[in-house]
Structures are given as C-alpha cells and as structure tokens.
C-alpha cells in the first residue's frame, strides 16, 4: 500500500510536470522556427514570453475578453519578434559574426527594464475564464489550467506546422531554410521569409506567455529560467526535429518535477542539465535531428 501511494505521488508529479513541459516545447518551437530560417535564435526569447504575458494582462485589464486579449498579445509578440530580427540579428548575420547572440541578450535586457518601468516589479496574477478546480484521472488530478497549457501549446504548433506545409508562403519559408541563395534565384525574398519566421516565433512566445502567466503569475523575471529550459528542449530534440521537441519537453518537465520532489527544490533543474550536456556530447545533432554530412 505504501509503495502504491508513493508511486501515485510520483505519477502525479510526472503528469503535471509533463503538461507544463509542453510550454517549454512551445517556446522551444520558436527557437526552431528562427533557426531553420536564418540559423540564429533569440537568447531573449524568455523576455518576449514575459512581454507577451504583460500585454495580455493589460489588455484584459482594459475590459477586453480573454480571447481578444490573447490575440492582441500575439500581435504585439509578432511585432516584437520582427523588431528583434531587424535590430539585433540581420546585421550580425550579414557580417557572419556571433554578435547576434549578444545583441539578442541586450535587446532582452532592455525589454526587462522597460517592463519594470511600465508594469512594476511585482508579480501579478493573470485572471482566466476557466475554473480553478481539477479533474481526476485514476487518482491523478489535472487542473484545467494545465490542460489549457498543453492543449494551447499543441494547438498553436499544429496550426503553424500546417501553415508551413500547405500554404505558398509556408513553402517559400521552407525553401529559404533549405538554401537561401537558391530560393532567391527562384524569386523568393529570403529576407522577408526570415523576418516572417521571427514574427511567427515572437507570436508563439507571446502566446506561451498568456498561457503560462496564469500558472506562474506575471512579473519581469518570470521568464528568466525559461530561455535556458526551452533552448535545452530545442537543442536536445534537434534544431530541425519538428515534433520531437514535444517529447523532450514532456520528459524535461516531468524530470524536473520528480527530481525536485526526490532531491529537494534546489536540485530541481540539475538532472535536466546533466542530461543535456551528456545528450549533446553523444548526439550533437539532437535526438531527433538529422545527421550532418560534411561536404568539401
């Protein structure tokens, strides 16, 4: 009986961690989008999540219904994503140096400072239209909030993937990912395609903010650790892996919760980090990534 209770507690941890891990996967998906198009990622992606959450909060504070507030946050997120690409990434990639890493960090730093001054340093609750109660599946309780996070992440990723595969614009972006020069020869403006990827990535980040916000509360530092976790998910899954990052996101969320439970909350992130370093050493292209063939 004792064993059974402990097992149930662990399963509970794994399930709620895994459902939150879907949020990591969603932010990681944003990394994947920009990496595919322009071989760069936003080290300030967590700050976009935070800014998206604050925008959503302000809009619903103005009396807009939840869904309108979320849509508004997504529009702002897209604009911010485009802004980061334009100011921090484009020039550095043209000069072929690593300056973009620093510039995205710097733009994120400015974002945090702006948020502190516009919305204040305190954490704020994010009101939601669904009940606080939870559902019970075979003794494991799942809150509505966790279900919304998982369903929302999965839903938006599916929508973007469908758009990438079945619209002309999406196919053009894929062509740019495969070979920028060849795409340009075919009349595709690769700059616009890259900008678009960054805007969509920013939109996904802002959406992530509005679904994580109700769980973590909204504050300028809410996303400080998120960039690293999401980036871990993206790289361990492979930066070109598509839905592989859902599995890795689930696994990371579950591992964190369980290790926090077994080792103490300070050690929460340690096993995930060790797995990350070992995983990268064994499979640099990621668990689900394609092997790179060197051509000379």
């Amino acid at each position: 009986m004792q064993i059974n209770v402990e097992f149930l507690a662990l399963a509970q941890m794994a399930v709620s961690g895994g459902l939150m891990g879907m949020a990591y996967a969603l932010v990681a998906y944003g990394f994947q989008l920009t990496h595919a198009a322009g071989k760069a990622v936003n080290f300030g992606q967590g700050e976009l999540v935070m800014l998206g959450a604050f925008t959503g909060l302000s809009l619903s504070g103005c009396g807009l219904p939840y869904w309108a507030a979320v849509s508004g946050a997504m529009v702002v997120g897209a604009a911010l994503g485009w802004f980061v690409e334009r100011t921090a990434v484009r020039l550095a990639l043209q000069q072929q140096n690593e300056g973009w890493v620093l510039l995205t960090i710097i733009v994120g730093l400015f974002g945090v400072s702006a948020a502190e001054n516009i919305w204040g340093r305190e954490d704020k609750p994010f009101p939601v239209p669904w009940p606080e109660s939870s559902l019970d599946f075979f003794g494991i309780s799942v809150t509505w909030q966790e279900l919304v996070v998982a369903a929302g992440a999965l839903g938006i990723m599916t929508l973007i993937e469908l758009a990438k595969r079945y619209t002309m614009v999406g196919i053009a972006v894929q062509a740019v990912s495969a070979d920028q020069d060849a795409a340009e020869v075919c009349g595709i403006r690769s700059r616009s395609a890259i900008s678009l990827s960054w805007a969509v990535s920013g939109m996904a980040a802002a959406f992530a903010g509005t679904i994580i916000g109700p769980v973590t509360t909204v504050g300028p530092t809410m996303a400080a650790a998120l960039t690293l976790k999401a980036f871990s998910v993206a790289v361990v899954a492979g930066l070109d892996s598509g839905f592989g990052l859902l599995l890795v996101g689930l696994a990371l969320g579950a591992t964190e919760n369980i290790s926090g439970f077994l080792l103490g909350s300070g050690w929460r992130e340690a096993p995930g980090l060790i797995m990350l370093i070992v995983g990268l050493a064994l499979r640099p292209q990621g668990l689900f990534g394609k092997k790179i063939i060197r051509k000379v």
Partner: protein
Amino acid sequence: MFAGVSLGLRENTVERILRTAIFIGLAALPALWQGQYAIGLLTLMAVYGVLLIGLDTTVGYLGQINLAQAALFALGAYGTALAIGAGASLPLALAAGIAAALLPGAALALPALRLEGPQFALSTLSFATLTIIVLNECESVTNGALGLSITRPSLFSIPLNATSFYWLCLALLFGVWEASKMLFKSRFGLAIEALRDSPTATDALGIGTLRHKVLAFAWGSALAGLAGGLHTMNFEYLQPAAFGYDLMVMLLLGVVFGGRRSQWGAFLGAAVIAMLPNLLSNRTLFSFLVSFGCILTVVRPIRALLSHRVPVFREAAPAIAMALAVTLVFFVPNVEEWRKGIFALFLFAVVVGLPNGIAGALTATLHRWIRFTPLPLKPAAGGINSSRKSEGIALRLFGLCKSFGGMRAVENVTLEIGQGETLGLIGPNGSGKTTLVNLISGLYTPDGGTIEIAGKRPASGSLMSAFSAGAARTFQNLQPFFGLTALESILVCQQEGGESEAMGWLLAVGLEGKARVRCSELSYGDLRFLEIARALATRPRILMLDEPAAGMSKPDIVRLIDLISSIKRAGIPILLIEHHQDVVAELCDRVAVMDGGRLIALGTPNQVRRDPKVIEAYLGADNIARENMEVLPC
C-alpha cells in the same frame, strides 16, 4: 586619405612601449587616487583583466560563445577560499583555485568542443547553471547562499595590505598578458586561427582540431581559476549569487566591447566593466557620458546625409539608441529605475557601432597614422627536392563502399598506386571521385572495404589517423585559412622546420612574393597553389589533388603542370582528380575512370581513351560508333 608616417619602428615594439607605460601608470595610480574604494576598484579591474584574457581564448580566438567563464571564475574563487580555510599559503591557495577551475573546465571541454555555435553556447550555459546549483546546495562545503568569509593570507610571511595586493594582481595580469600573447603568436596560435576558418582542413593536414581547442579552453579555464582566487582574496567574501547570469553577460560584453582576439581588448573591456557600473552611480558623470556617446554616434549618420545618401542601419542604429538613452536620462523623472535599460542601449550602440571593439578601432587608427616596418623575411630553403622518398605501395584500396541513404556514391572500388606513380582519376560529375578522396583522407567512414596508406591501415573515419599514415590532400572547394597569411598557412602545416623551409615551399609554388599577404586577399588561383604547398609542407607519402586546375586561367594551368611534374620527379605518389584533358594526359602514368560510383576502366591514358565503356560514360551510348574521340578528357 594620408598615407601615414613611417617611424622605422616595428608594431611589436610600439605595442610593448605603450603597454609598459600603462602598467607603470597603473602601478603609480594609488598614490594619486587614494582610498579603500579606489584600490578595490583598481584591483577588480586587474582581476577582470586576467578573467577576460581567459574568456577571449574561447570567445575571440576559438570564435565560440562561452557562457561558462563566470562559473569557472566561481569555482576558482571557492577553490582558493576552501584552501585558505584549510590553512594553505597564498601561492598554494591560488594553485588550488586554478585546479578547481581547470579540472571541471577540461571535463566540460572534451564533450562540449565537439559542438559548434548554439549547441556549444548551450552546453556551457548548462554547466554554469549547474555549478551555481551545486555551490548553493552543497551547504556543508560552501556554506550555501549565506556565503564564505576568509582572510587574505600573507605572501611568504610578508603581510599584504590593499595596495600591495593590488600590485600583486597587476604583476600577475602583466605576466598573463605576456604569456597569452606569446601563446597566440606561436604555432599553437596559428593553429587556433586556422581551425576557426576550416576545422576540416586542420584535421586533414594533421594540425589536430580538437586537441588545440581543448588546450585553448583549458588555458582560458586556468586563467578563470587564477582570477577567481585573486577575487576571493580581494573581497574576502564569496556568495554563489554573485557569479550568476548577470556577471556572465557582463563578461561577454566586456570582451566584445574591448575587442576580440586581443589582450588589449580584454584589458580595455575589463577596465570598462569594472569601472562603468560604479561610475554610473554618479548622476552627473552618467549624463555626461551618455551625451558624449550620443554626439560620437551621430557623426556617422550626419556624414552620410551630407554626402546625400540615406544612412545604413549600421550607421543609424547606434545614434538612435544613444538618442533614446539621452531622452531617458534627461526627460524621465525616475532615471534610477531605467538604469538597466540605458545600459542596454549603450551596449547596443557599442556592439553595432564598433564590431571590432575599442581595441580594434584604436589599432585601425594607429595603422592609419603610422606605417610600421615589417620583420624581414628569411631566405628560402628546402623545397620539393628535399621531400622524403616513398617506398612500396603508396595506396591500396580494396572493395571500398560508401552510400548516402539509398545513393551508392562509391561501390566496390579496388585500386593501387605504386611507388612514385601518378594516377589520374576521372569521371563525369557525380561519379564519386571526391567521395573516394574523402574516404581515403578519413573525412567519411567507409561502409565496407579497406584502405592502406603506405603500408599502414588508418582508423576508419579519422582525418588525423589518415594523415598520420601519410595522406595529404587539397580540396575541390577551397578550404583556405582566411585569417592567416600565405607564410603562416605553411608554417602551421609544417611538422618540422621553420620559416626558411616555409619560404622554400612558397617558392616551389611561385608564391614567395606574397608571403605576407592574407589568404582573404589572395586570388582564387593563388589559393589553389597555396593549398598544394600546404599539403606538400606536411611531407606526405601520398598526395591527393582534388581538381587543382578547376577555375584556373590558362597561364596558371601551365604553371600547375610544371609544378605537378616537379612533384612527380621528386618521387611523391599522386592521386590526381582532374577534368582538364591536357593536364591528365601530360602527367598521369595510369588513369582510373569512375562512373556511378564504380571503377569502369583502369589503364594508361591511351588505353582508357579507347575504352568503349568510358566513351559511353562521357558521351552516351549513341556515340560509341563515333571514331573521333578528341572530346574525351585524355
């Protein structure tokens, strides 16, 4: 523009004079700028100097974003603190700090340095996060978040006050600076420079990519440990929170701000990140700095507007950022709250406006004003005729296979190259010639079959192992070391011999007049010849030339034929992939023909030319009946 004055001085001498003057000035500074606070700040600058010189080895020289330096700094600090706690003397405590950073650093470097770009950045970031967790949680050793207090030990029973400790830090910075400079000027430094441009070429030419990367990272980690030890003794108090993400971003910015790949840059960056946050607490000075920065940045867009063109992003963005900062400083009531944002704008302007940092901008200015005297070149020695004679079978392939997915790129190839023989390898595009060379040189792992180079069997899929057996190659798509000069490109490939021998190889390929020209400025044809010289300088037992004449002009091709003939006369066996029929016909003893991954013919140029299978491969089956075969490549 004016041409600059020639002072008859070497750049090295000028640099050394300037540096010595600055260090004497810094050592004398405590006499003018007194107080505990000032000394503490100056010591912090010296400590950051050591730390940033270390960080620059990865961020600058290796060209990889390293986010672990703050954590290695922390490990060094804790190592020293614990050693002092156990009663160690000052040198021993510093050694403990170095070891505490060096060992985990090396353990991280081995897996992490196989990675590139974002993956490398991420693994160092994970290491950093993990280190802070361990320092926080292992309370029995580190006292957790509460922190550790220590007392600075005396040096050989001389007690150190703040000023003398500052002098010690300054002396160590000077030593580290000199050592780093020598290290990166040596062959080791050339190798680091080379592998940043082409890790494939550095492995194929036996320079050893991973080995050099790990050593460079280890050097950076050791400096982080040393800096950490000094930091502990400076503040006499440690807390894990001080070594987190904020410090790491600050260090990275320090290196970029100062200028990468330069000890001067690391030093200037250290001065900025040590002084700036403290100076910024003075409101008047802060406003003055931001206004001054704004004036500096608007010069370029205004100059662009005066010459009637719209300023580009690189010119306009810093000015916009600084204008925004000025607006915040003068028109926002709660400036204190915005300090982080203003700092970000400031950094943005610097990173975009000065991509080579302060040191880069200063060096460029200095070079515009003063023409330095270059070091004289040594006379050439050695050359092709000094090559070692090879004996026995140079290359033996048996049943070699390689496929990519469903595509059989090389299928069951069996081939031999004898003593001093030149074998031509021809075939239509996509027939598997380059893949075969990639297999022999160890870039690809064969799916089946064996490779024997000069009687040795290299480990499969290892460029270094194939090189050790005696293979050297050139690349169809050039793999030059753009950051090196022609002379340095040879020096870095030589296993033995010095500058005279390197000049000998340049003379052999006719590039002796361009010894000091950077590869990024050499013409395409020159780079092809330089690649051959590079391969020859490794003294190969088999030389593989992958389409050396591709893209060359007619006169260059004549030069190339002369060169290959002389290599042949020196007795070096050659595997030559080539499309130009005159080259193959003139140079090759035998010719092998590939098509669709298979070897379809092997014989003297004349035999192969008449082979119906070869004609079919090149011209299609309809043309077999044609008697005139002059279009054939040999």
